[in-house]
């Protein structure tokens, strides 16, 4: 909301307050200052000047060099780019040294090589609303050399963000009242007080029917006859312009003015366009309404409309007037509405229709019923002053809603407004416990000071025992903590000493998980992987089982129809579905980086994946997982290694081995069938299913812009942590040397490593402490080895924990192992 300092100053004495002090004051009252605009000029160096000569600058299509008379006795040469002036025009001229709004200092200089000694100004360059495009053409009667500031009013506009709990600040009077309350500065006369005290009220009878009292329990209408519609007086129009509004006509401007003065929205109907009494009712489902902006809307039963005997919706209650019933130049009689609407309904209507107004903004944040008659009285006063005519009494339909909790109502202080038809307003009453204040502030805020703050804010100590009446404009003061807040806010948190109490806390499982994950992340970073963070909401189509083993989202279980969780109202299809796997995100990262020429594509992400456990009918579960992606070269190329090797499956496997080096990791074919193009397996760690690995389908990778072998693994972080952090005892180093033996097996090419391992284990050789695959040799040409065979070399280590083995003992043990291999593996020979 924009607040004009000039306007504000008519309600509160702000003498001697600088702009920055004012901004700080607002800031520490909890009102955010989003911007400050200085309007007009304070310097003597912007003067009225007359253009005497105007000639085009050579080589420019828009610059002119002007000789201007600024009342200095000689002419001044200034280069100007504007187009809207002619020789003889009077315009504002900023002389060198002048500082314009925004801190812009005018200097002598050259434009296109032509001397320019000052600047001819537009209105906006002087911080004023632009009336025309280009220079500000001044009336001819202005005297050359007169400082512009002598006829231009300066002002400062504060752009403020008011928090939703403080609708009472959404007006100039409200803001003045608050500033007076927190600073102790003098508040001038309440502009609504006198008119409200003298206005006549009458029961509305048939003139107003409240058919939806839950939405609109209080509606007043004032008939003002014989008004003359025309432009607003200059002071009023200027105030509206200063806060960014466009003057329309005197009546409409006055309703807007009252809204920004008192914070209560009003509406003026052309009385001639109404038939019979008003009916404030719920809209019919599908009823149509055309706003004064000429937009048509389809309404629902939670919307409230103002209609008349004709039945038509004349206005959308609390939001906007209708096209047909508004005040125009030919209007002579008006009906002025001031009413109270339930904020939830107005919010619902305004949001659903995407139709907001200064009125709906205030109603949906909450208005005080106490302000209904005040606004009506103030607007009536101004209309009579500015537009003439005669006003009837305020017709009052219904009664102000009681906003006080039922149990407090009987003892509440009640305010009374009006004459024949009274409007009653019950004040909120709060029981304040000073001990709570002492706890909150460590007793640093004296009770006397606290009480003074509350009184300044308009509260009243009812009984001297901590019962306080809250002022009628403060809808947010309901409970003791609301009063504590006011005292702390105004007293200032700066005045409350900082303390530092803490307690001992136990480490939680989340602490341990965090530590494990950070260690793992650093390990992977050290191994040349970039940690990434990708979006948790992804495109449904990116969850493609043929890309990764995504169909087997963790925990390992096929994704069924409905297991993928979709938000009801996505912003876009690209971000519509909660990721069941990190694979789509990591693939996108890889594709982005390969486009940037990255040769080494190693990425990992840790984060949650989501799925339903039962086709949308089960539980939604969230799992913390680790996704690892590998493709491209093993290292970037360099002069020392111009063509580094490409990543293959065994490199991903090597990474897995480093994650949990002590554990027994097995990759087992998935129980679920996988699309043929993708190679995949489940990862078992210490015989527990822990994740999956996949070589991604090559065609899909090409489609995604990744024309290379891509490897992916996804692991359950909780299980990984269990394995990696299990307690263990350090093994002692062997006392005696071991002896190694190698054996090269000539076997069918289809024989797996796992089958060899199984045969080795079947030997149950006690002296065999370890074995490893050392070499694999194939010859597709069939020259050195038939193409359907391979030679695999294993190395075996034998050791006895209690003595050094003799060569004969080692040979005997090795023979036993080899014999077992021969027995267990068909078609085996040794080379």
């Amino acid at each position, binding site marked *: 909301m924009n607040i004009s300092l000039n306007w504000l100053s008519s309600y509160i004495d702000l003498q001697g307050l600088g702009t920055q002090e004012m901004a700080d004051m607002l800031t520490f009252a909890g009102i955010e200052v989003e911007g400050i605009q200085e309007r007009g000029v304070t310097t003597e160096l912007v003067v009225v000047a007359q253009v005497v000569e105007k000639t085009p600058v050579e080589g420019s299509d828009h610059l002119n060099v002007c000789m201007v008379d600024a009342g200095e006795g000689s002419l001044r040469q200034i280069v100007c780019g504007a187009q809207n002036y002619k020789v003889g025009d009077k315009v504002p001229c900023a002389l060198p040294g002048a500082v314009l709004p925004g801190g812009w200092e005018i200097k002598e200089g050259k434009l296109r090589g032509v001397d320019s000694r000052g600047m001819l100004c537009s209105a906006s360059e002087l911080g004023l609303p632009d009336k025309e495009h280009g220079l500000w053409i001044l009336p001819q009667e202005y005297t050359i050399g007169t400082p512009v500031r002598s006829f231009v009013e300066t002002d400062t506009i504060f752009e403020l963000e008011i928090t939703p709990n403080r609708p009472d600040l959404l007006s100039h009077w409200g803001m003045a009242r608050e500033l007076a309350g927190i600073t102790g500065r003098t508040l001038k006369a309440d502009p609504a007080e006198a008119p409200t005290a003298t206005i006549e009220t009458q029961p509305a009878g048939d003139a107003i029917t409240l058919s939806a009292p839950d939405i609109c329990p209080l509606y007043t209408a004032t008939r003002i006859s014989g008004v003359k519609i025309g432009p607003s007086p200059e002071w009023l129009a200027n105030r509206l312009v200063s806060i960014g509004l466009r003057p329309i006509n005197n009546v409409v401007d006055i309703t807007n003015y009252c809204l920004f003065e008192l914070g209560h929205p009003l509406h003026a109907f052309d009385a001639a366009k109404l038939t019979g009494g008003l009916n404030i009712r719920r809209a019919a489902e599908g009823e149509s309404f055309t706003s004064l902006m000429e937009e048509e809307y389809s309404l629902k039963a939670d919307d409230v409309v103002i209609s008349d005997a004709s039945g038509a919706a004349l206005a959308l209650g609390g939001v906007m007037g209708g096209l047909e019933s508004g005040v125009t130049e030919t209007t002579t009689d008006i009906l002025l509405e001031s009413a109270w609407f339930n904020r939830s309904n107005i919010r619902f209507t305004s949001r659903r229709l995407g139709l907001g107004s200064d009125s709906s903004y205030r109603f949906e944040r909450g208005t005080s019923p106490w302000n209904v008659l005040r606004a009506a009285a103030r607007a009536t006063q101004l209309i009579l002053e500015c537009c003439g005519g005669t006003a009837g009494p305020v017709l009052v339909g219904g009664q102000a809603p009681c906003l006080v909790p039922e149990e407090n109502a009987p003892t509440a202080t009640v305010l009374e407004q009006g004459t024949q038809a009274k409007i009653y307003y019950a004040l909120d009453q709060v029981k304040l416990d000073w001990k709570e204040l002492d706890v909150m502030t460590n007793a640093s805020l004296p009770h006397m000071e606290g009480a003074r703050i509350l009184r300044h804010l308009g509260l009243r100590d009812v009984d001297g025992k901590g019962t306080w009446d809250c002022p009628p404009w403060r809808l947010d003061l309901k409970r003791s903590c609301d009063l504590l*807040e006011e005292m702390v806010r105004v007293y200032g*948190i700066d005045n409350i000493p900082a303390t530092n109490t803490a307690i001992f806390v136990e480490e939680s499982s989340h602490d341990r998980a965090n530590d494990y994950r950070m260690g793992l992340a650093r390990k992977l970073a050290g191994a*040349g992987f*970039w940690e990434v*963070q990708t979006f948790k*909401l992804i495109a449904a189509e990116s969850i493609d089982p043929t890309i990764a083993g995504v169909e087997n989202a963790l925990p390992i279980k096929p994704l069924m129809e409905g297991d993928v969780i979709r938000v009801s*109202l996505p912003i876009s299809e690209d971000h519509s579905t909660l990721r069941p796997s990190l694979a789509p995100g990591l693939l996108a990262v890889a594709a982005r980086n390969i486009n940037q020429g990255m040769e080494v594509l*190693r990425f990992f992400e840790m984060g949650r994946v989501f799925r339903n456990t039962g086709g949308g009918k089960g539980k939604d579960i969230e799992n913390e997982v680790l996704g690892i992606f590998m493709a491209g070269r093993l290292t970037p190329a360099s*002069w020392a290694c111009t063509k580094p090797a490409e990543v293959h499956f065994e490199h991903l496997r090597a990474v897995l081995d480093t994650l949990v080096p002590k554990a027994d990791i097995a990759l087992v074919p998935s129980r679920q069938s996988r699309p043929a193009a993708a190679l995949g397996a489940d990862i078992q760690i210490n015989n527990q299913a822990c994740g999956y690995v996949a070589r991604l389908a090559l065609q899909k990778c090409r489609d995604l812009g990744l024309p290379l072998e891509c490897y992916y693994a996804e692991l359950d972080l909780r299980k990984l942590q269990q394995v990696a952090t299990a307690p263990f005892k350090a093994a002692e180093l062997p006392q005696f040397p071991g002896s190694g033996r190698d054996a090269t097996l000539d076997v069918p090419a289809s024989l797996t490593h796992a089958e060899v391992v199984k045969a080795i284990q079947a030997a149950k050789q006690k002296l065999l402490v370890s074995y490893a695959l050392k070499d694999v040799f194939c010859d597709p040409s069939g020259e050195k080895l038939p193409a359907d065979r391979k030679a695999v070399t294993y190395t075996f280590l034998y050791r006895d924990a209690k003595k050094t083995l003799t060569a004969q003992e080692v040979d005997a043990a090795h023979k036993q192992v080899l014999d077992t291999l021969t027995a267990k593996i068909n078609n085996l020979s040794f080379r």
Partner: protein
Amino acid sequence: MKNQIASVQADALSRIGGIADMKGLEEARVLILGKKGTLTQLQQGMRNVPKEEKPAVGALLNEARTAITAALEDRKLALQQALDAAAVAGADFTMPGATLPMGGLHPISIVREEAVRILRRMGFTLSDGPEIEDEWHCFDALNTPDDHPARNEKDTFYFDSGKLLRTQTSTVQARTMEKQAPPVRIICPGSAFRRDAIDATHLSAFNQIEGLYVDKNVSVGDLKGTLEYFLKALFGAETAVRFRPHFFPFTEPSFEIDVLLQAAGQAPRWIEIAGCGMVNPAVFENIDKETGKQLYSGCTGFAFGIGLERLAMIRWGIRDIRLLIENDVRFLAQFQ
């Protein structure tokens, strides 16, 4: 014989002096001291030396062998030193290195871990909760009015099940207090979601750290002392911190916190960094009502929340928040 020994020795020493490489040295050793070497052959001639001359000739032979062996060793040492010197001569230390694959942590992880480390040092323990939340934990428990705009499905991601993606990590306040009796002193780093279109300053999914301390007699002074310590630890001990009154439904009084920071070449500026406040008693009442236990009545506490993307952007002068989710290695590599 004696003359022969002297002659072999002289020849040998002169030959050794002229050797230029290790191979020549080994050849000389074989030629002189090997099985058929010149000196070895002379030694074999000892048989024929008269008995009375043997001691003297033997001594001469030993002297010759010692001298030759020493000469060989000296020469070997000299040659090795020359080789070693040659091995480093002309090395170009200005050559670029070979390459290793580079990796590193994401900037959000870096700031998160730093904040977590400071807060854990201050006695906060980690807590967590689901990202798919119910309205109760996300709004009701936190004193959010029924008609609050955040509950609108244009602002919050809902699911057909009626659940939603949490709009703030404050849900973990309610989750923790439900499970645990006071005192509570927790932090929760995590994701939150708002239905904002993605642009240079907005993401629809972002990261926060939530903090909560509840006990008997927790004061505004504690809130101030704790957050001042935390922010000074994060931004430097000299950093000025200020608290501006603000409004959040779940705290009262509420504050926004600014820190005074100076970007290169600019005047210092107050930059909003976090929200905080004293836990609204309504939140305690909601928890006690839900659990049926009166654990939190009579407690006071404070809560705070800080956006991690914002922290990273301020810290490193990042202008476009989208850089944090694009994961371009040229960007990521700057933080290592």
